[in-house]
């Protein structure tokens, strides 16, 4: 059984297009940087104030003034630069980011996303997620298909407070890839190795159509 997170990050990496400017959320999404396809150059923005994020620094070369939004040390590629938070969110809200990749607690039929609070339990805060979801041209949800208790994260309707309303464009889990179309809603386009169409149906609460040319064994393993 392959690692779910690496499967998701690897499939997400194949979405990247040359020249795109992307923002990667904390945690799983950060792994996508390891799966940028050969010949594809993307520019990574980090909302705490940097663009052109490169590989992690060599051990011993970390710098307290060079970190991402998760406080991991970073380097910049040539051409990268730094800026303040108001400018960073001008970039984000202003539609200058091509794609954002975010984890989630819940995502639903209408494209609603809930990933910042479990009422009465955990409040991390929305951080930059509300702005990223609103401003990025394509919003990718990259997340395990089910929560730890086995419930589908792909729900009929989110029950937690939303981070963004009708903003999710693509969902990539370790089991499947869905794209949302403005008129017809979610379409199952790909199923990962080791899962059948029935498996996906069994662990997905939101309604979706199956693409005529749905790909089985499309990624993973």
């Amino acid at each position, binding site marked *: 059984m392959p690692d779910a997170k690496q499967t998701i990050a690897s499939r997400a990496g194949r979405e990247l297009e040359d*020249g795109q400017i992307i923002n990667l959320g904390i945690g799983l999404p950060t792994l996508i940087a390891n799966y940028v396809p050969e010949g594809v150059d993307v520019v990574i923005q980090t909302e705490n104030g940097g663009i052109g994020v490169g590989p992690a620094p060599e051990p011993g070369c970390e710098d307290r003034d060079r970190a991402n939004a998760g406080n991991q040390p970073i380097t910049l*590629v040539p*051409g990268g*630069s*730094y800026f303040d938070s108001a400018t960073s*969110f*001008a*970039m984000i809200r202003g539609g*200058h980011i091509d794609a954002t990749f975010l984890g989630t607690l819940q995502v639903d039929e209408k494209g609603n996303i809930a990933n910042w609070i479990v009422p009465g339990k955990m409040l991390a805060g929305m951080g930059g997620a509300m702005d990223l979801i609103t401003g990025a041209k394509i919003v990718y949800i990259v997340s395990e298909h089910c929560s730890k208790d086995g419930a589908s994260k792909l729900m009929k309707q989110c029950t937690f407070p939303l981070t963004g309303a009708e903003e999710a464009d693509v969902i990539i889990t370790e089991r499947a890839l869905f794209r949302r179309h403005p008129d017809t809603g979610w379409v199952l386009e790909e199923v990962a190795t080791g899962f059948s169409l029935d498996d996906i149906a069994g662990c997905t609460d939101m309604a979706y159509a199956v693409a005529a040319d749905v790909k089985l064994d499309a990624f993973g393993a």
Partner: protein
Amino acid sequence: MPKNKVIPIAEAMSHVKSGMSIAVGGFIGQGDPLTLIDHLKTMDVRDLTIYENDAGYRERGVVELVRQGKIKKVVASHIGTTPEIGKAMNEGRLEVEPTPQGTLAEMMRCGGAGLGGFLTPTGIGTIAEEGKQIIELNGRKYILVPSLKCDIAIIRAHAGDTWGNLIYRGTSRNFNVPAAMCADYVIAEVENLYTMGELDPNAIHTSGIFVDAVVRANVEYCTLREEKFNA
């Protein structure tokens, strides 16, 4: 590695079409994108709407395009430095919409920042509030100014790299920064061109994320030659 945006001026400027709105950087000649304006003079476009602090200085700048009849409307804070503009306006050949300087700068920045608008106290009690929504907040009145999005922006910088990271010099920064933020297609003429990594990442005034095309400025519009330049 970010991509190379240096392209021929004709290719960059081919995005300009009749009827479009253009944000123009500069301030009465300080940092005006004269190379791009010169190229626009050779193009067959008309009915342009210009958003700029002014219309240039004396005989140079956007005023040259007005003289050619290419401009339908100028939204500016000040047209006193180009007497031809007032004449064209009085003769009905040009529409001029006066706008407070700070409001114009903020309209551009807000448009680029994805904000719908902002509340300014500037112009309350004057004709600047005519036709505008007034909002009262904590006992003070504000004009609700919608943000600005343009089709094109043309700007000038003192130094730039091939991805469009820009550094301005002195008071030539001015409207070049907000203009660069608010347009669908942003063309920067740069006086000194560098490869990526040559400019200090802490000292960039306009990130390349806002810039679509980079062209070399005509050498006669350069304030300092490359060999003398210290970013």
